[in-house]
């Protein structure tokens, strides 16, 4: 071991320490940034009681559409005398068909195998050489005249004042009449299967974790399971009532999905501005009055 060896060793040690030190600094920095992001999530209660008016820390940088929408949601929640009138707008020119919203929704709501709340429809229009393809994320339309509500024999699904059409998991008997009544195919049935069905390790812990839907924290393994009943998109109402945005809105990398209080509640909200532009609604001729509007749609799915 000569001088050069010692120097090399020292340099290697120094390099290794430096690299290690660099990685350590980087890790701490990332943890700090993640913690910054987590703090607002931890601060706000996930369950909002009717008596408590939620209080939210002010959000910086309302130029950012996500933060602006989040601010508008919190503002709408703050005034309990008015219904928030939740509305969604989807700009199909911005949607790139990545299906991140589909996956985010499945992860957020702990959806089991064979269930999807937000598939993305692909629609082609035009003729060669002017072909065009557009993508239509299709959540539940939360119709103002929902055909699923009158057919439910036990009032398990109903129309809320804020515009959401939820499903009462305790009351649903799984007759699936609402599925046949929905013209958008927006409802799915929980058959009780797992993503890891048929494997020796089924189900995995992530599959039996509690779902935050409706703030009820249900697991598909215990007595208040969702197996055998209907499940559907509810605009992530458990997130919205905590001052957050639906998972699909937050996840969308192109900002195609806009959400917030509609024109009846806040005519100046971002979503109200969006739907003031020319928009379309799916199967509007049926008279269901969907709360989901599509912008820049050349050829609606049918």
């Amino acid at each position: 071991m000569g001088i050069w060896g010692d120097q090399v060793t020292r340099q290697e040690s120094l390099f290794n320490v430096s690299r290690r030190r660099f990685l350590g600094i980087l890790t701490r920095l990332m943890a700090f940034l993640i913690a910054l992001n987590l703090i607002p999530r931890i601060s706000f209660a996930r369950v909002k009681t009717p008596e408590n008016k939620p209080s939210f820390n002010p959000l910086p940088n309302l130029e950012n559409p996500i933060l602006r929408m989040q601010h508008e949601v919190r503002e709408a929640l703050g005034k309990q005398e008015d219904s928030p009138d939740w509305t969604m707008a989807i700009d199909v020119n911005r949607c790139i068909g990545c299906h991140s919203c589909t996956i985010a929704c499945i992860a957020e709501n702990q959806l089991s195998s064979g269930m999807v709340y937000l598939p993305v429809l692909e629609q082609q229009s035009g003729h060669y050489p002017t072909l065009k393809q557009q993508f239509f994320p299709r959540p539940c339309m939360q119709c103002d005249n929902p055909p699923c509500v009158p057919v439910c024999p036990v009032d398990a699904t109903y129309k809320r004042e804020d515009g959401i059409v939820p499903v009462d998991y305790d009351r649903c008997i799984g007759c699936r009449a609402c599925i046949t009544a929905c013209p958008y195919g927006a409802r799915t049935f929980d058959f009780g299967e797992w993503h890891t069905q048929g494997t020796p390790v089924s189900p995995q812990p992530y599959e039996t974790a509690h779902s935050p839907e409706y703030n009820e924290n249900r697991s598909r393994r215990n007595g208040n399971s969702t197996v055998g009943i209907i499940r559907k998109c509810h605009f992530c109402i458990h997130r919205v009532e905590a001052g957050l945005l639906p998972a699909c809105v937050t996840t969308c990398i192109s900002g195609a999905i806009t959400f917030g209080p509609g024109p009846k509640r806040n005519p100046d909200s971002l979503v109200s501005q969006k739907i003031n532009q020319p928009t379309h609604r799916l199967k509007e001729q049926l008279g269901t009055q969907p709360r989901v509007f599509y912008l820049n749609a050349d050829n609606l799915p049918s």
Partner: protein
Amino acid sequence: MKQRKIISPIVYGVLVLLSLAGVVGIWYRFSQGLQVTALTSYVPWGIWVSAYIFLIGLAGGCVFLVSPYVLWGRKEFLNLVGPAFLAAGVSLAGGLIFIWIDLGNPWGFLNLYLHPNWDSSIVWEAWGYPIFLLVIAGELYLWYRPSLRKRMKLLKYLETLSCVLAFLVIWDSGSAFAQNFSRPLWHGGWEKPLTFILLAVISGAAFLLANHAGNNNRSPHPQKVDRELALVLLFGVILFAAIEGFRLWEAWSNSWSTVSGQAWKTIVSGPYWYVFWIGQLGLLMVVPIFSILLGLQRRDSRWLGFSGLSILVGVFASRLNFIIPGLVEPAFSKLDLAYQHPRLSVQYFPSLTEWTITIGLGAIIILAYLVIQRLLNHGNWMHVDGKKV
């Protein structure tokens, strides 16, 4: 005069075995849930709902067809009364069991009575059919208790009530489908519930004809009641053929371009084309018309009995071709491709468990009918104005 119906022990043995298979299937369904079925979120109803609407129609039809004797005293219908009440009772009970096991949360059925939504047709069915079943049970009790047989007046009231109930609930069942504007094959006006009533009369008449004319050990010549039932069937089948034919022509004349037209195209030329051509067209329409005409012309009740059996199978095929094609057209043309999964498919063929339960429960219904009939000694009596002969 005694009538004895001797059922081969082999038939009883087969029915018992099938019934046991059905019981095992039902146990499996309850232990595993609806994942044992081939249903999907886009085709949520299948063979069990088809069996339900078939059986409730059969029950209603049987009740309608005893009214000529009970309400108007037509003696040629006398021998049909007992079998009709019994068939109505067991088939209605079987239908309710079918729809119960089809529920995703079967034990939640109590919510239908604790939290009813009276805007829903299903609630009216959930309340109406059990009441209908109780009325049929009362009619059965009155008919088979010799000491009570003289209470024809009470039986008339019950028969009137059961006819009204049968009409209302079957009409309501048809209306539930007709009001569904999301399913173009189902959506319509009063012709849908009317079709339900028509098929109820047809299936009731078919059963009674098969049961009476087909088991006529005294003479191959059809009795007057057989001829009348045959004429009812002939008229009913031709009318149903005309209605279905019009709808098919409407779909074809629009080049199958409408959504209901696409469903009709699936029915006549899809993967299960044989259900339409062999079941609905052949067994329900063509074969019975020829066999009825043959039976009437040759005065052979066996042809009439055969036509009844053929129609029963054809009506079941017709119900399958009503429920399933109404659902296989997705809400959007590529919805099943947007997120692909077997439970998000528009393809449906009943699973082995569904077939086992359907056939098994059907065997239980038939076995229950035969056993109860034997217990009630129906074959040992002929009643004339309430007097044992």
